[in-house]
């Protein structure tokens, strides 16, 4: 039973990591790509870690996996925030379909939304 749950969790994790990678390739600009890279990949890795924990139980390996999942959950949003903020300030263009950009507006800078060709 537990072994089956572990397998389900592992496979869900693998599928979400795959979807995250696909999103990274398909989405149009860095900010949208960051969305795929943070959400899908975090849940995917947490699923894999949970699967390892369920498989090995309360052992040195299982507990380490759980702690890893916790650290990833706390640190991935911070790093993606830093990357997105850095790109905005450096003026990396937003995709042309972007509907509004309050950040650059409030800073009083020139619009960084990509122009339609």
């Amino acid at each position: 039973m537990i072994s089956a749950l572990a397998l389900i969790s592992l496979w869900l994790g693998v599928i979400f990591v795959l979807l995250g990678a696909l999103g990274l390739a398909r989405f149009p600009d860095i900010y949208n790509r960051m969305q795929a890279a943070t959400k899908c990949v975090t849940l995917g890795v947490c699923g894999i870690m949970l699967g390892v924990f369920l498989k090995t139980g309360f052992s040195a390996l299982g507990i380490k996996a759980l702690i890893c999942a916790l650290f990833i959950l706390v640190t991935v949003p911070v790093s993606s925030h830093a990357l997105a903020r850095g790109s905005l300030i450096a003026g990396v263009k937003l995709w042309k379909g972007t509907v509004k950009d309050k950040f650059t507006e409030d800073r009083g800078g020139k619009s960084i939304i990509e122009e339609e060709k």
Partner: protein
Amino acid sequence: MAKRIAYFIAGLIVWVLLSWTLHYQEVLAGVAVSAITAGMFGGYLPLKAGKLLNPVRWFWLIAYIPVFIWQCLKANIDVALRVLSPGMNLKPGIVKIKTNLKSDIARVFLANSITMTPGTLTVEIKDDYLYIHWIEVRSDDPEECARMIKGPFEFFLARIFD
């Protein structure tokens, strides 16, 4: 001092969990390492140590975990569906919302939680305002945006950290 003690205890717990043994040599090494790190970095702990002893806050923290996991799952399915759909349904934009949380740590957790929810990514916190990159801007009204983006998080975080 209280901060350093709290930091020391937390460090020791993580050390014991990571080594997963109660052999006295391991524990002694853990005590030494935790004491050194607590001495160096304990002062930076962004919490009042008294808050750590309040059971009501711990209760809300535990109640927050299932809420967070549910929101996180919804976020993932939402983004996954967008990745798989041919047109991708993108309508991205950066919106500005107001937060009522006071302490820094609560705001950090709000920003982190928002980053994990459907299609939103925090780009900047300035004063009381958060700038958020939203994968599908569903409303023009700032109030309504704030309600949609924050969801249940602010309610819980105010009770845990503020």
